[in-house]
């Protein structure tokens, strides 16, 4: 089975632009979470979605939004990009909401210039 897939792998944007990151979970996994990882730091929680509903939100501004589709894939949107949004954005999936053994994708490296 394929693992968690994310696209694109790399992205360069300028300040003020908008970005959409995409994630396909492992087949059969219904929960998708998004994490931001700044260089040299551990991942920081942004959102969790389960059965197409938001189940958790981290301490991020409203410029960050996400959604989950009927096929359980997910998008993370970031508006009005700031230099500080430059990071590795990780998507993780799990079979259900309560299981914490997260399977991570390889991430999208976002650079904001």
């Amino acid at each position, binding site marked *: 089975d394929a693992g*968690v897939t994310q696209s694109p792998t790399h992205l360069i944007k300028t300040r003020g632009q908008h970005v959409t990151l995409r994630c396909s979970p492992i087949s059969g996994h219904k929960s998708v*979470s998004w*994490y931001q990882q700044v260089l*040299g*730091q*551990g*991942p*920081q*929680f942004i959102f*969790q979605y389960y059965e197409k509903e938001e*189940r*958790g939100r*981290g301490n991020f501004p409203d410029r960050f939004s996400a959604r989950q589709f009927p096929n359980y894939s997910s998008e993370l949107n970031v508006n009005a990009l700031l230099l500080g949004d430059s990071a590795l954005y*990780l998507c*993780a999936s799990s079979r259900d*909401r*309560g299981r*914490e*053994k*997260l*399977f*991570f*994708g*390889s*991430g999208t*490296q976002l650079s904001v210039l």
Partner: protein
Amino acid sequence: EDQVTQSPEALRLQEGESSSLNCSYTVSGLRGLFWYRQDPGKGPEFLFTLYSAGEEKEKERLKATLTKKESFLHITAPKPEDSATYLCAVQASPDTGRRALTFGSGTRLQVQP
């Protein structure tokens, strides 16, 4: 607020030189403590979950242990392929309503031949 502190930040070992990585945590009722391995440019890869003090788990050259305040990842006779960043994360009790993982900043391990 849940907190995870990992030490040392970086560790350089010779092949075969055993050592331990430390993860100190504070959390409102521990539901689980997780160890992940992360290679450069990749997402974290799940290693272990520990649920209660006194629990131990092993996988090849790695052994994870848990007390009420900290966890150790023991690496026995490491090989160069064990070089990676090791991340520790905690999940709070469901009573808190917090389901996301809180990660530490990781320990960067380099094993030299």
